[in-house]
């Protein structure tokens, strides 16, 4: 059964949310503070911290997850060293994946993080396959499969949900619905959204439960995903959880030729749709301060401790940036490694 969240666990969850937020802030700041250190694509998880942490808090040792290219948050919550993650994003030899993956392709299989796909929706079949392996092994493992709302328009999503439901695979499909496919809004590209229905409606087509949850509330996410995990673990098959989040940064950093400084543009609500009020409302509902306020109001978390958590996270991420900047770049010859196992 889903774990009851005591003060210690809630504080752990808050701590992970703060760590993810502070990490992403430092990735974003890298573009201005250390121009040229990151050249490729980065996609930030700010705004999705509650959804990520609420979901991961349901995992047991041995459980696994797969994700998309917006992937920094998961390993942070799983306990991967943030120094290694930042060094990977900076393309360093001592990065989590030796500089072969970068921001979009983090993986830490020892902690259950089976990797990502930069091709939208295409990690969904692999997560489904990991669920199949767990079913065959009969060791009671569950796989969390994270993807965005846009991925649910890929054939791989539909094929996988059909197959997982048919085979009753222990997979929980967590759709982080941030309402934007880069600069196209969901109601412009999703039939359910256009009809005013939740995207979890898609589960109906595959005869599995489909639930929509406030992805800004880690306790609600934990409860909803937890029920789905229980269902998966007991052999009753997959669930589609639509977790509604608001990403607080643009889809990704500006992409430009070498030499042109990169930065994070404003959110597409403003740049594409001219809707500054929508974005500012999202900021007012920011899940990280919202959870802090709730824990403090409920006397679960002492404000002094909350401040300390933030200071610790900032210190940790400062150290991660320093480590990553100082870390060596790979030798050019190393580029040829790992093509074949």
């Amino acid at each position, binding site marked *: 059964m889903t774990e009851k969240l005591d003060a210690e666990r809630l504080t752990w969850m808050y701590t992970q949310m703060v760590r993810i937020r502070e990490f992403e802030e430092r990735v974003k700041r890298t573009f201005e503070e250390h121009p040229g250190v990151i050249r490729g694509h980065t996609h930030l998880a700010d705004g999705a911290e509650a959804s990520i942490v609420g979901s991961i808090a349901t995992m047991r040792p041995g459980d696994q997850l797969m994700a998309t290219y917006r992937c920094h948050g998961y390993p942070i919550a799983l306990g991967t060293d943030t120094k290694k993650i930042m060094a990977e994003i900076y393309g360093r030899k001592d990065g989590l994946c030796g500089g072969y993956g970068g921001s979009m392709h983090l993986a830490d*299989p020892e902690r259950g993080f*089976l990797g990502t796909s930069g091709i939208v929706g295409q990690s969904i079949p692999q997560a489904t*396959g*990991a669920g199949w392996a*767990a079913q*065959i092994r009969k060791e009671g493992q569950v796989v969390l499969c994270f993807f965005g709302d846009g991925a649910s328009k890929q054939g791989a999503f539909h*094929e996988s949900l059909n197959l997982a439901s048919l085979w009753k695979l222990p997979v929980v499909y967590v759709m982080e619905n941030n309402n934007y496919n880069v600069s196209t809004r969901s109601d412009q590209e999703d039939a359910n959204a256009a009809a005013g229905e939740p995207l979890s409606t898609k589960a109906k087509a595959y005869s599995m439960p489909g639930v929509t949850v406030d992805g800004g509330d880690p306790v609600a996410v934990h409860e909803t995903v937890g029920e789905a995990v229980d269902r998966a673990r007991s052999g009753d098959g997959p669930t589609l959880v639509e977790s509604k989040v608001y990403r607080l940064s643009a889809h990704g950093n500006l992409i430009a030729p070498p030499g042109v400084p990169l930065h994070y543009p404003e959110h597409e609500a403003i740049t594409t749709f001219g809707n500054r009020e929508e974005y500012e409302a999202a900021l007012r509902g920011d899940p990280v301060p919202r959870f802090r306020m709730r824990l403090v109001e409920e006397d679960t978390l002492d404000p002094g401790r909350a401040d300390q958590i933030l200071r610790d996270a900032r210190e940790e991420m400062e150290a991660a940036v320093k480590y990553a900047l100082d870390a060596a770049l790979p030798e050019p010859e190393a580029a040829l490694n790992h093509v074949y*196992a």
Partner: protein
Amino acid sequence: MSEIETTFVKAVRDTLARAMRADERVIVLGEDVAEGGPYLLTEGLAEEFGRERVRNTPISEAAVCGVAVGAAQRGLRPVVEIMFIDFITLALDQLVNQAAKAHFMSGGQLCVPLVLRTQGGCGQRSGAQHSQSLEAWLTHVPGLKVVMPSSAADAAGLLASAIADPGPVVVVENKALYYRRETTAAEPEPIPLGRAHTLRRGEDVTIVATSRLVGDALEAAERLAREGIDAEVIDPRTLVPLDVETIAASVQRTGRAVVAHEAVTVGGFGAEITAQLQNAAFDFLEAPIQRVGAPFMPVPVSPPAEDAYRPGADEVCTAARFVIEWDQPEPAAAGPAAAQAGTG
């Protein structure tokens, strides 16, 4: 060593069964595999190993291939079947962007010990979407290995090595070879990937042929022998990794080469072999290397049209004669071989 009479499909099935008996991580999945599939290639596996390890799937090539990738990453040894190579378009993202890159992108942390079996080839009036030879697409992707057996014995030995390989291997069979009778070892040894097989020794011209064209090349060599041309026939067996040393050593000796496959000549893997041979044997070449392949068009259905389309022993003979006659006092005009080897 005891021998048995077998066919290509039986050899593949027996190899799968041996691998599944030896290692419970080996599983088979694909459309209709538990029922044997359209060629009855997996017939009997579900009865011996159960329907969990021999898993029928929905008609969802992307998900099926992706599920196999995910299961492989979690330590199973899936052998996934894509019924016709023509359908591999639907699974290409999982092969090209996922299976081929997981090990690399993770800095070596992830492994995908996956075998994808499929079959191509024309000659059965199956039309433009069930007859293609698309292996060249896969050879263009670093991270994938690509195997093309031309006999039952090689099919068994190469598949055994593919299953044991720590990375993704695509085995491209040819449906025209499926029911030919052949005598093989009862317990075939694994054949290492990346080792070419010289099937016939010869001094005048090297014919490099893949899959179905290997048999045609041997037939062509018999015909050429009656004309006094002594042809060597080499089957690379695996396209990636390619045993260019064996092929180049032969061409350095014969000075002439024909590269033959069933796929469309343009952009076919023969172009890669030809380019590598030019580098490895340029100073030894007495004639331009000739390619034999299909014309640049989809596979037609109607028997006379398909038969005209389908490259075989005739085209190999023509190409071999062309390279032999190249430095004769009056060289043949750039005739039929060049036309065949060009855009068809």
